[in-house]
């Protein structure tokens, strides 16, 4: 099947007082229709920048380059006008902070209807009808009354549902969700994630889900791309990744979270020593090598992609030697 979104060699550079920050350093991935791709990685590794660059919402200090950036066959880099017609319409985005992502000055009805009226040239009544339909769809009761409420009158979970409804107003083909549940309580997180999964099944949208929570990834992703320091270091189906993490970083991550039932309580957890490298200035070779127990001088050179089936990772080792960190 044609991928709905195709990204090749995407780079995002940011100008900062300290120098140019290479937030995203040449990543490539595709998303197929109806697929959920999870982008996982630690804070600051460039996940949000990737998402924003797809939407054309990068901050002014950022520049984006890519070999390919196509959505539904259209080149996203060609014209800003076209992009503005697509976003909110064919591709929509949900943000991390439901508390601040809605405009406090307008009712949620206004904000829901606005996007529909803008893209679909609909009447107020049509937009309202669609808003009610979607609010009910995301599990909000008494939807018609909610329309006249203001964001601050809703709890975080409800606001995130409103955000989801808003993203669906025009029936998008791709939903980009940047850490949509991080700010929410575990019980609410489960509800929201389930809602997203259900919606995807019903509506067939593709989802690019960004998270740092491996638990979330395991439960909702079809495919996973692990990012480290602006690069994708490993990508695989969720099942493959958790069963056979190939990249030392992926392994380190998985070892450092306590898994109930598997990690003995009170025992030391696995950990990755050191800290994430600065993304300012050029990096050659493997960015993880200064924290990696398997590092060799070769790591400073160009590191090739390895693959087994659909699983791909970028490391000099085919399989990891038995030396532990």
């Amino acid at each position: 099947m044609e991928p709905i979104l195709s990204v090749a060699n995407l780079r995002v550079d940011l100008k900062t007082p300290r120098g140019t920050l290479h937030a995203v350093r040449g990543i490539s991935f595709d998303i197929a229709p109806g697929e959920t791709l999870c982008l996982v990685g630690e804070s600051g590794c460039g996940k949000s920048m990737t998402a924003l660059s797809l939407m054309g919402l990068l901050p002014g200090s950022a520049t984006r380059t890519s070999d390919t950036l196509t959505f539904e066959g259209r080149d996203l880099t060609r014209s800003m006008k076209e992009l503005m017609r697509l976003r909110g319409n064919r591709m929509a985005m949900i943000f991390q902070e439901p508390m601040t992502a809605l405009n406090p000055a307008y009712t949620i009805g206004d904000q829901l209807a606005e996007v529909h009226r803008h893209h679909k040239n609909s009447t107020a009544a049509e937009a309202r009808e669609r808003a009610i339909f979607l609010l009910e769809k995301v599990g909000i009761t008494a939807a018609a009354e909610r329309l006249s409420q203001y964001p601050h009158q809703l709890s975080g979970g409800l606001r995130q549902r409103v955000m989801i409804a808003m993203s669906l107003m025009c029936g998008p083909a791709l939903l980009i969700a940047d850490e949509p549940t991080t700010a929410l309580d575990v019980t609410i997180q489960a509800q929201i994630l389930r809602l997203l999964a259900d919606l995807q099944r019903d509506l067939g949208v593709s989802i690019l889900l960004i998270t740092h929570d491996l638990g979330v990834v395991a439960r909702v992703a079809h495919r996973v791309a692990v990012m480290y320091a602006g690069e994708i270091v490993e990508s695989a189906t969720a099942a493959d990744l958790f069963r056979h993490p190939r990249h030392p970083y992926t392994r380190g991550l998985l070892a450092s979270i306590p898994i109930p039932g598997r990690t003995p309580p009170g025992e030391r957890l696995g950990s990755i020593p050191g800290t994430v490298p600065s993304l300012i200035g050029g990096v050659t070779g493997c960015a993880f090598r200064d924290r990696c127990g398997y590092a060799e001088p070769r790591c400073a050179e160009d590191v090739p992609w390895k693959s087994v089936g659909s699983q791909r990772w970028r490391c000099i080792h085919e399989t990891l030697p038995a030396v532990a960190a």
Partner: protein
Amino acid sequence: MLAYALKRLGLALLVALTVSALAFVALRASGDAAIAIAGEGARAEDIENVRKMYGLDRPLIVQYGDWLGKLARGDFGESLFFKTDVRPLVLEKLPTTLYLAFFSLLFALVISIPLGILAAVYPNSWVDRLCLSLAVLGQAMPNFFFALILIMVFAVTLRWLPVSGSDTWAHFVMPTIALGYYIAPAFMRLVRAGMIEVLASDYVRTARAKGLSPRSVILKHALRNALVPVVALAAVQLGFLLGGSVVIETIFALDGAGFLAYQSITHKDLPVMQALLTMLSFIYVGLTLIADLINAWLDPRIRVG
């Protein structure tokens, strides 16, 4: 809502009461009103008479109580200098000052909001630089200096505008500019800072993600939120303008409350001073109330809890 209104009214009263008490004590303490009342050429016994007649020999607190009592009946006393009732005097002059303050504010807003928005939308661009330069330069020039230069250019040299007076709108043009230009920079900065902050906010990003036009993002989603602190400042500034128009009113011979205040100060006309201070404080509190209401309309978080 009612509770709120009552609370604000109570606050306004309390503030006005405190202001008037402060003014009363300070003014009485700093000069002998009896001598001022007795006037030119009064002898010691005349002054003593006056003191008895006006009750100035009583304790200060009794005098203040007396004054308040009269105030409650809308009686501000009699002007020592003009020998007329204070209330009509003040009420007659106040509108001129209110117009002046209002138009100055309007002028300041009309130039500062668009410039502030432009500066925020194109940070570090030439517009931004221009705005910042204007802001800094504007605040550096004393407004009386500016006023004199306006007179020199527009009234004396070009003869486009009348120098002084308060009869037609043309008389208000230069005072409005002289007073308004001085407060505009503060608004410009605030609009700029507010817009920059709001433009970086999540909900503006949401609005952009919805594919809305930049115009609608800026004017609908951003501006409304950025205006909240501007409105609050406007109230404070309007209060400031009411008091601060003394200099401008003097220069342009605008016959308003500011000048009346100046006269009453130099003539030790205590009742007028007091009435003006009390009224201005009341107006100030009223303005902050209005600002609160406007902000409540702008920002529903304030309006509906």
